């Protein structure tokens, strides 16, 4: 609360205290520098300063990363708000016989974290490179793969931040077979998977199911999605 025509006395007191703390800190550092110089330990003092600088840089880096994470969360929250508002508008609209069908199902709360699928050595190639800036709403990954232990690939999928996108297998790759020879358990090693690419950074993993039993990661990387400005 401020006094008429003046600063709140509590604020003034806090400012004075802060000023005092800063002054004491400065005096302490001056004294420390003098002591180091008196002892002829200039380099030791520089070393300490370098350490302090490195710690500050680390803190700044962590703060920047936190800021980015927070920004993404805000963007996600904004998208959710927009989606809910659209649902609300649709619900409030006069309902004809088809009125309710206009309401989209509520977005799921998001997949629960899934344990990371272990990797395995694969011979593979991706016709549509996953190494790109993703500019559209979705992307179709096409390629071929088989495990080096020769087991059959019985399914493929993409794991994007824990959300799974199943793909299609059994696509002919005659040029691959001509080069590497026929693969007894993977005669048609081609596959394709379409997955969504919402804005932001995502953990991407291309995974294959082997012999109908276990899933193994073919490759994983981080992808960056930044839709074109409209």
């Amino acid at each position, binding site marked *: 609360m401020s006094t008429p025509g003046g600063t709140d006395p509590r604020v003034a007191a806090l400012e004075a205290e802060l000023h005092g703390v800063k002054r004491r800190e400065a005096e302490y550092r001056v004294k420390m520098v003098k002591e180091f110089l008196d002892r002829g330990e200039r380099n030791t003092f520089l070393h300490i300063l370098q350490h302090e600088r490195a710690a500050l840089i680390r803190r700044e*880096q962590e703060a920047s990363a936190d800021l*980015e994470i927070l920004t993404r969360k805000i963007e996600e929250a904004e998208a959710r708000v927009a989606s809910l508002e659209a649902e609300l508008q649709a619900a409030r609209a006069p309902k004809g016989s088809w009125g309710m069908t206009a309401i989209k199902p509520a977005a799921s709360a998001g997949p629960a974290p899934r344990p990371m699928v272990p990797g395995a050595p694969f011979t593979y190639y991706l016709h549509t*490179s996953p*190494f790109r*800036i993703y500019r559209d709403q979705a992307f179709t990954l096409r390629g071929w793969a088989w495990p080096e232990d020769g087991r059959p690939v019985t399914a493929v999928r993409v794991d994007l931040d824990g959300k799974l996108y199943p793909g299609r297998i059994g696509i002919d790759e005659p040029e691959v077979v001509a080069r590497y020879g026929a693969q007894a358990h993977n005669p048609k090693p081609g596959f394709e998977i379409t997955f969504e690419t919402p804005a932001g950074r995502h953990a991407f993993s291309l995974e294959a199911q082997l012999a109908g039993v276990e899933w193994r990661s073919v*490759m994983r990387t*981080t*992808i960056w999605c930044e839709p074109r400005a409209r």
Partner: protein
Amino acid sequence: MSGSDAQERWRTSRAPLGDRSNYKKVWEAQSEDGDVAALAVAGHTDEATLELTARGTIDMLKSTIGIDPSDVILEIGCGIGRVGLPLSKECLHWVGSDISSGMLKHAAARLASRPNTTLVELASVGLLELPADSFDVVYCTIVFMHLLEWDRFRYVEEAFRVLRPGGRCYVDNFTVDTETGWKIFMESYAYLIDRRPAHISMSSSREELRTYLVRAGFEDVKVHDLANGLIAATGRKPESAP
């Protein structure tokens, strides 16, 4: 044939320049084996030496253009991610670009633990895949020696485009007037004329690198003689760049 046609015939003739400028083919071939890939882009195969040389590169970047924890950084020709792995720990986001998808496969495996990294495959010489005004730092190290001069300049021009106003650029190469540079030159000299590989190392001069940066529009252009015998040119994109 008339003499007057000669000028036209000479202008339109297409003499093959070997595979040197077919960078995708050359570097996909180098990337087929993980160790060969590491050797081709870094001269070493063991992780400890890769880490050590990467630290050296990061020190060079810090001493010439500076690295800030809030920087979004692009490497042109990142190969297996030798520099990106440690550098991503010191910046906000590191983007590695390379013309070889095979190299990027190795890089993806090495960078799997680094969430603030992105890999981008380049279709050809240039950075068409990347948006303008997006990066604080663009650097290209141990790459120019494998490129023809026009392609070196193309990457400098493209670095200018993708940098934000005020962004910093770093490129390097070896030069023949240092002991290290002369050693690299003599290693290439030892090849038989008809056995020279497409990726053979070719030097730059200080004037060449400086000219590329000045012509591309950079300001505050400097050429540095580095401790490891390389030369580097650095510049800053003007704040008022269009």
